[in-house]
């Protein structure tokens, strides 16, 4: 494991009496691609702005490389930011934009020129140096913003929803571009987004946030397959979140049918939330299912069909399947034990960091 580069300790921040971050604790390792993921207003951007030095926390400390930088202004920090809407200097050429930080550091002309050439090559925009920012497309401008940041050789690159203003295709291309950049530069990326797909594609570690609290920290696989609570399960991908009862270890009752599962340690006859991903629901003939239901909706999605199956108690299951069952068909529902994810009910005492209103 790489060493801890940044340590956020007990960060609290409120604006106009509204609590944005409440006792946030988070560390970031060297060379990590860490994503802060959450809906708008969850505190992810504020966390990034505190890292960049644009906000000062009300309480708590920002430790960078074993130094307390909580009160250090942005121009004295060894990290650089890529802003959401590029924030290029429109009165300067692309080359001047990239050279901005280096000129301030009084680097030699030849050093600066080498760096400009290197950065433009890195972001695949060679020959654009003399153009003005306005003459570039959104994707190109964003790549210049990245180039402008990385020529300063920061230890950490902060990215604030950098792909938010781009269209879908470009966004996907840029995701690969960013992964490549990170591997080539070997520096830490801290990325803020509300797009779960972006987070899953690029990150080493995802930090899911909601209402100023960290909901879960983990690898993309862990976040997707083993969400710790209903919020995470709901925010990351589609899912069926059903109230159930843990009968005993490895056996859960959902909608009055019993499903074997692999989770243990929840006690006996305890109310739990059960997460089942739509692609994990197995449809078959009514006789083969643990539950039976009726197909009430059917949409062709390209890779798969999206179906809604209503069970007699009224619960609507979201199902993704390559097999097609017409609307009105009686089907049986089953789930592989490994694909059943059991979570504590949000109200339980043993979840300190997780506070959810819903």
């Amino acid at each position: 494991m790489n060493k801890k580069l940044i340590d956020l300790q007990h960060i609290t921040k409120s604006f106009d009496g509204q609590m944005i971050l409440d006792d946030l604790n988070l560390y970031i390792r060297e060379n990590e691609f860490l994503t802060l993921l959450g809906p708008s207003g969850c505190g992810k951007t504020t966390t990034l702005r505190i890292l960049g030095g644009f906000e000062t926390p009300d309480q708590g400390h920002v430790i960078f490389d074993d130094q307390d930088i909580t009160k250090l202004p942005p121009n004295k920090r060894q990290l650089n930011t890529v802003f959401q809407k590029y924030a290029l200097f429109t009165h300067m050429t692309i080359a001047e934009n990239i050279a901005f930080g280096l000129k301030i550091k009084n680097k030699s002309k030849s050093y600066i020129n080498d760096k400009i050439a290197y950065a433009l090559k890195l972001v695949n925009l060679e020959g654009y140096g003399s153009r003005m920012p306005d003459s570039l497309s959104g994707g190109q401008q964003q790549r210049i913003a990245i180039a402008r940041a990385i020529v300063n050789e920061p230890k950490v690159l902060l990215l604030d929803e950098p792909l938010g203003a781009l269209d879908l295709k470009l966004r996907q291309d840029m995701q690969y571009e960013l992964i490549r950049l990170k591997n080539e530069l070997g520096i830490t990326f801290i990325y803020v987004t509300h797009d779960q797909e972006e987070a899953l594609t690029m990150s080493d570690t995802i930090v899911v946030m909601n209402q100023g609290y960290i909901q879960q920290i983990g690898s993309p696989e862990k976040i997707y397959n083993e969400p710790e609570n209903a919020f995470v399960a709901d925010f990351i991908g589609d899912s069926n979140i059903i109230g159930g009862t843990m009968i005993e270890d490895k056996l859960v009752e959902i909608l009055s049918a019993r499903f074997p599962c692999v989770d243990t340690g929840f006690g006996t006859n305890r109310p739990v939330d059960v997460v089942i991903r739509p692609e994990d629901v197995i449809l078959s003939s009514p006789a083969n299912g643990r539950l039976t239901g009726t197909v009430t909706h059917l949409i062709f999605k390209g890779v798969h069909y999206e179906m809604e199956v209503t069970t007699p108690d009224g619960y609507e299951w979201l199902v993704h399947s390559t097999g097609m069952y017409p609307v009105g068909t009686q089907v049986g529902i089953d789930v592989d034990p490994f694909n059943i994810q059991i979570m504590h009910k949000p109200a339980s005492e043993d979840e300190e960091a997780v506070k959810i209103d819903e």
Partner: protein
Amino acid sequence: MNNFRKKLPGTPYFFWSVLFIIIPLCMVFYYGLTDKSGAFTLENIIAIATREHSKALWLSLLLSLIATVICLLLSYPLAMILCSRKGGQHSVIVFIFILPMWMNFLLRTLAWQTLLEKTGVINSILSFLHLPALNIINTPQAIVLGMVYNFLPFMVLPIYNALAKIDENVINAARDLGANPAQVFFKVTLPLTVPGIISGITMVFIPALTTFVISNLLGGSKVLLIGNVVEQEFTQASNWHLGSGLSIVLMLFILLNMIVSAIFDKDGEGSVL
């Protein structure tokens, strides 16, 4: 037919500009370039070279330049303060600044006359406090004061607009890249507000250059600006030919100002040309 319909909404404005801009302008040029018998002459233009006229022109240029510079120096910090206020607070300050503009221009200037007079309000207060009297009425200083007071909002607003248009993150990006507050200002903020500065300069310099009301009221008959000369040719001497000729010269200076503005403001955001 179709073409005609597209042009229809513009028609009233076309007639307006012909009637109230093009025709008067042609008349000015006609009078300026002819003598009393109607024969072509450049005498009315060349008349600017007489000692009295050129002195008035140079004084006008000097005073309006000084007034413009003072307006700029006062407006920029003010506009920055306005921009740094959040929400409703700044609109109150902008409102207070705009408020005097609701009052008639003549009345405002007349008010300054009353304030500055030898036995005026300011001097009464000063003498009550046993301080030396302020004798600037009927001097160039009083005229500059009047110009600054009257035209300041025209400088503040375009600069304020230019500042407000700057994305906060552009400033943050400059700080992020290592710029200290002074570097942020001179390398980013100031260059980005050039269009606002240019349009402010144009909007202060041109009316200041051509004013005759301010110099009439605050300069008495002692300080003569080119605006006063032109006005007197029309009203007192009834020499429309000379008045028009001098106006044409004045127009050339305004045109010069606009050309210079256009050169500095490449994007054409603030200048008129």
